[in-house]
């Protein structure tokens, strides 16, 4: 086990606490850089979605994980980014300009949402962000001169320095990866700056933060704006990846999916956003795979346990019928969310930390290390 001796505050806020980090993240980055030359085009496309979802996840983590302001309206910010890109692209605005414009507009609207949100906490904030998202969705459907309403908008392939970048080319993947990495590094830097510490202070106790001299209103608005801006950037990439956008893509469902990303990944660390994004994006191909292969596998197992060919065939068709039931995906989604909340509240990254600690302390690991405290005493209304 490695002991880190910290003798100065600078040691505590280093980006890479020890050389192991540099090596492991270096290897990860190298693997990601050679990925397009190794993986199939389908997996590459999924990887691009992982990058986009992870970027939104990081944005949501800044707001929900680190500032403690829940939002169920991030699909709206994504939509604002995507539509800004699509609209400006029609007038031949170059990519870097509309990329930044989308982020700026999204951030501005995020700040505007942040103002009313200042006085709201908990459930009231959740419902206010849902209302905001529903209003944006309706505006997108009705403001036909700009958004083409429910017909949706086509998004041309983006062109970088005059060279077109198709949405399934390695260059587009590198672009998404670059945005994700820059977002993560930027967020890490933000979180170890005074601003980030103010965010965490607000999350832990607003009253205590205020009494320490943190301007709560200012930092909440900042948090909303930063989070919305990053989501807007992700929206541009999202629009280009899908090459077609319409209002029904940016529903409450998508906002919930983003929350699930950070919930499953873990809300206390940026790793969570990436792990959660991998989980959410990969669950679809995994379920399809199960649907195709599960019936045969179960029939095979039944056959090895002495079932006759007729029974095995019967089992196979029954399982196949069950697997292709409408709505099975939603049920599995629901079960996954509930199971994570009940049994893995720290998310996938929390599980990784637990496993790591288990081996580091090998015979001495205590389960109670990660136990969260339950509070029965005060209601949140009075807190």
């Amino acid at each position: 086990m490695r002991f880190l001796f910290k003798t100065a505050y600078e040691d505590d806020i280093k980006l890479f606490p020890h050389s192991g980090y540099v090596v492991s993240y270096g290897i990860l980055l190298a693997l990601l850089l050679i990925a397009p030359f190794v993986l199939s085009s389908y997996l590459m496309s999924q990887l691009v979605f992982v990058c986009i979802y992870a970027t939104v996840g990081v944005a949501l983590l800044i707001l929900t994980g680190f500032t403690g302001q829940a939002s169920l309206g991030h699909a709206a910010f994504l939509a604002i980014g995507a539509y800004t890109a699509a609209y400006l692209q029609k007038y031949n605005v170059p990519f870097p300009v509309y990329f930044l414009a989308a982020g700026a507009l999204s951030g501005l609207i995020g700040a505007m949402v942040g103002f009313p949100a200042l006085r709201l906490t908990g459930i009231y904030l959740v419902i206010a962000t849902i209302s905001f998202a529903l209003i944006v969705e309706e505006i997108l459907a009705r403001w036909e001169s700009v958004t083409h309403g429910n017909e949706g908008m086509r998004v041309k392939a983006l062109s970088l320095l005059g060279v077109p970048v198709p949405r399934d080319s390695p260059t587009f993947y590198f672009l998404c990866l670059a945005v994700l990495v820059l977002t993560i590094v930027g967020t890490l830097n933000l979180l170890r700056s005074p601003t980030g510490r103010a965010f965490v202070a607000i999350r832990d106790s607003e009253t205590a933060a205020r009494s320490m001299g943190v301007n709560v209103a200012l930092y909440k608005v900042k948090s909303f704006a930063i989070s919305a801006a990053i989501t807007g950037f992700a929206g541009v990439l999202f629009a280009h990846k899908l090459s077609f956008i319409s209002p029904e893509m940016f529903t409450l469902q998508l906002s919930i999916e983003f929350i699930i990303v950070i919930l499953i990944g873990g809300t206390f660390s940026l790793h969570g956003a990436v792990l959660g994004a991998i989980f959410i994006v990969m669950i679809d191909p995994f379920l399809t795979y199960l649907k195709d292969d599960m019936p045969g596998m179960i029939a095979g197992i039944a056959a090895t346990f002495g079932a006759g060919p007729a029974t095995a065939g019967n089992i196979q068709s029954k399982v196949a019928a069950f697997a292709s039931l409408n709505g099975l995906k939603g049920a599995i989604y629901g079960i996954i969310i509930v199971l994570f909340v009940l049994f893995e509240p720290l998310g996938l990254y929390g599980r990784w930390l637990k496993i790591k600690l288990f081996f580091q302390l090998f015979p001495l690991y205590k389960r109670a290390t990660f136990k969260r405290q339950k509070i029965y005493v005060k209601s949140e209304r009075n807190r």
Partner: protein
Amino acid sequence: MLDFVQQLVSGVALGCVYGLIALGFVLVYKATEVVNFAQGDLMMLGGFFAFTFIGMMGLNYWIGFAGAVAAMALFGMLAERVVVRPILGYPQFSIIMATIGLGYFLRSIAGMIWGTDDLKIETPFSQGVLRMGSLVLAYDKLSVIAATMILCTLLYLFFNKTTLGTAMRASSENMLAAYYMGIPVKRVVSIVWAISAAVATCAGVLLAPITFIHSNVGLVLGLKAFPAAVLGGFGSIPGAVVGGVLIGVIESMAGFYLPEGWKDVAPYLVLLAVLLLKPEGLFGHHVRKKV
């Protein structure tokens, strides 16, 4: 003028529906501080249960209604035991997510069992209208208004006058202290979920002739009932109904007098405006923060 009154009445009827669902939200919130995002889906499930009893098994309407309410009360207890009890005492966000997950699950399961078609229950109120002068009121809408008023009064009395109601309010203020005072907090929470699922079922069955039942009805109406509960202050039973009626009236007025598209947005705009001016809703109490 007649148009206005007609819109007003249909808005009130619609609002009572929202209020009825919002009542379920408020009940659970009042007693356990849990915000149940699956309330609309409990309503949907209640409607399907009633459809099974009345439409498929051919039972009498009232017997089927009572059967559905009883079955859903048990289901509410089960949901509380499995999903909510293990995470009581954790931050609200986890519980919100757990109930969102429960909602997803119920919607898909209901879609698998009962299919995705619109179903209809034959009720004694399905046909017929009440004419008052030139004003026309359908019985199904009147039945919703009446049921909302009755349920609201009963629940209000229950919460404020009975021992069990007092126990519920106490455990919402401070579970630990309530437990020390000899209140069986677990059983109280369980009963609250049963009552709230039963109220949701009443809403589902009464709604059946108006909106039909399909697996997404809970999500659609739940999203409207939610602002109703918030508007009313989330902790207040009369507030939920008043909030629901406000939302319903705003919606039907906006649908009649404003251009297309405003109908769906107007309730949320009003909600945001109210939250800006009065963050605790119209009937909520303002509580000072303590460190």
